[in-house]
């Protein structure tokens, strides 16, 4: 930035009281209609989750984790549970593995539906916000039927799951999936084929695979560059049931800019993610085996853990979510729990992506990366 430009520059705070900024704020330096500098600030959503985890037992821990991101509660709580299972050496019954996988994919669908709506509201079409949210209600109903809660589900537990499927849950899940399958082509038309949507998203926030790797992006943001990077395939978790399913990692390969992705590609990618998740659930539903849902010894085994450390990871909706857990001998609480959320990287990549774009496009750049404040304030 040359000194002349700096003379005309105006500093504008986007947030924390901006209607689009829920729990975050970015300092933008604006020249005319163009942003020349973006300084994202974290800390407006901070609830000291990592410190809190040090005072919670291993069965209470997942409840803190799922409050990090309420939209993907089934996925968010899993890395911690996975780490505890690894340290305690708990076996997970087959039925629990399948149930976990189904609910994690349902959670992914519901989170992505929320994002379509949020992104559409940021782009000014409120109709497309509410239509996916109507369908999302059916998934929330399923969660309520299963666990008694719509968001804070606390479904998984070390050694299995806490709630079993019954006829009602299966019926509601099937209804939610059917409704979504029925409406998905409409949503695609409304978003991907809408000329005004294309005008706003094509060529916005373009970055390459190498950039994405350097900034630490993961999940749909990097898959939209045409690289099938997915923890579900790359690091098969034996306590989940992805090996029972025949599926491919969805990637977008845009011929206009191979190896790169813009906001439009990332929207296409998130549609593919939903289709993959529906495919996985549809294949798993007939394969649910009979048997117990939780290892009966797990409760006693996870009261106090042996000394050790473990690394639990999951492919979340927004990218790789991991928890690193270190325990001391016979302790009731972890010595240290380090959470790695996917959105810290995507939030701070705004620093590189935003300069040069117009003021109006800032929220499009932000929204296309799908960051959730809970994941960067830990």
């Amino acid at each position, binding site marked *: 930035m040359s000194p002349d430009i700096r003379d005309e520059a*105006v500093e*504008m705070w986007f947030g924390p009281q*901006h*209607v*689009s900024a829920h729990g975050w704020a970015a300092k933008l330096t604006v020249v005319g*209609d163009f942003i020349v500098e973006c300084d994202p600030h974290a800390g407006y959503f901070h609830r000291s989750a990592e410190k809190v985890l040090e005072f919670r037992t291993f069965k209470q821990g997942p409840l803190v984790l799922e409050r990090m991101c309420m939209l993907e509660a089934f996925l968010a709580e899993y890395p911690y549970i996975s780490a505890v299972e690894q340290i305690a050496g708990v076996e997970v019954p087959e039925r629990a593995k399948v149930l976990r996988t189904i609910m994690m994919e349902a959670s992914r669908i519901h989170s992505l539906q929320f994002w379509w709506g949020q992104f*559409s*509201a*940021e*782009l*000014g*079409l*409120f*109709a497309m*916000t*509410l*239509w996916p949210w*109507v369908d999302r209600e059916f998934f929330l109903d399923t969660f309520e039927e299963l666990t008694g809660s719509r968001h804070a589900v606390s479904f998984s537990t070390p050694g299995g799951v806490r709630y079993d499927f019954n006829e009602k849950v299966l019926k509601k899940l099937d209804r939610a999936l059917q409704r979504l399958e029925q409406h998905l082509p409409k949503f695609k038309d409304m978003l991907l084929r*809408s000329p*005004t*949507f294309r*005008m*706003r998203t094509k060529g916005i926030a373009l970055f390459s695979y190498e950039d994405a790797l350097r900034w630490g992006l993961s999940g749909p943001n990097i898959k939209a560059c045409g690289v099938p990077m997915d923890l579900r395939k790359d690091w098969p978790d034996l306590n989940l049931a992805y090996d029972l399913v025949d599926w491919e990692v969805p990637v977008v390969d845009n011929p206009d800019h191979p190896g790169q992705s813009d906001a439009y590609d990332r929207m296409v990618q998130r549609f593919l993610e939903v289709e993959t998740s529906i495919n996985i659930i549809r294949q798993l539903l007939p394969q649910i085996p009979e048997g117990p849902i939780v290892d009966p010894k797990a409760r006693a085994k996870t009261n106090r853990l042996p000394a050790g450390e473990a690394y639990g990871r999951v492919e979340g909706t927004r990218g790789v979510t991991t928890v690193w857990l270190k325990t001391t001998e016979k302790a009731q609480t972890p010595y240290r729990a380090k959470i790695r959320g996917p959105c810290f990287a995507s939030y701070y990549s705004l620093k590189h992506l935003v300069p040069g774009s*117009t*003021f*109006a*496009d*800032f*929220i499009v750049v932000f929204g296309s990366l799908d960051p959730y404040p809970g994941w960067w304030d830990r």
Partner: protein
Amino acid sequence: MNALLLQLFDNIDIIGWLRGIPDWIHGIIVWVYTLAVGVFNWAWGVFVWAWNLALDNWLLLFKAIVFPGLVFVLMLIIFDVWFTRKVWGRVQARRGPFHIGKYGGLQIFADAIKLISKEIIIPRGAKRWMYRLLPSFLLLVVLTPFAFVPWTSEWVITDLSVSLVLVFAFLTAVPVISLLTGWISGSKYTLVGGFRAASNQFAAEIPLIVSSVGPALLAGSLSVLQISQAQTHLWYVVLLPVCFVTFLVSAVISIGLVPFDAPVADSEVIFGWRTELSGVYFTLTYFAEFAKQVLYSALIVALFFGGEYGVPGFPPFLNFFLKFLVVLFGMIIVTSSFYRIRQDQIVKYSWRYLLPLSMLNIIVALLVLAYVPGLAGILAGGG
């Protein structure tokens, strides 16, 4: 020196001067009394004159205040707010207002009472008098052109030979007020919104006026009433379909409705130039936006859809009003089904497409008029 003073006092009759004081006071009182009576008589004369004028022109007064005038327009705006919210609700898979009154009809009154009774918070950096005056000016400027809307040939408040030009002259002041409101509100976001509003008008105004040239040319008049009266046999939308579309789109840009609502884009600039307005001032600007929507819908009916002419046998006002409702509904549907486009895209697309298209349609219509025999005879106003 002393001798001079003594000589001076000798020449003045002090006692005589004191004797004259009552007369002097009386003179002043009589003068003041006469003045007051004169002023009162003058004011009374003005009142009597105005009273007689009102009685002589009671129809005009009734028109200006009650039927196609203030009360009717305000009711129409309230209806428009309700209608917009209801249609938007249906488009967005919800029900819209339905709690207060039948089908939520009284919800708008409840909202208005709430907004008017709210505390007015004026930011520290704002210019207080401008902040208080500008929203009222905005509503005034938007309501004045309703005087020229020909609901029927009788029920029009007034008509001038240049009323079409006057309508646009009044509406041009709207973005100036928006820009000033943004400027004096003492916030960066309102300033951005104000400049966006000005830019919107800059993009839309010329296509808007050029599109309205078509009907004016065909009718051979610049009066809105005469243009609508000239369409007895043929609606101008038949000859000028593209002009109608460009007029509609530029009207939507000028109002700042959804595909072009960058001036008040909530996800980008919070509420644009209206961010810092509160209470009754916000209500005034909110009403002004809907008033513009109603005004443009009525103008479209008058310019392109034959005004009061429609189904034969129907009352003329009903003809106009039904067409008005259809146009309003179309406008609301259009504005509820697009994503917001960027400010530079608005200017680019309206200059690149709207302006040439509207000009082209006028030229083609004139050529058709010249080469199709008998068509000029159908147009009552002459070509």
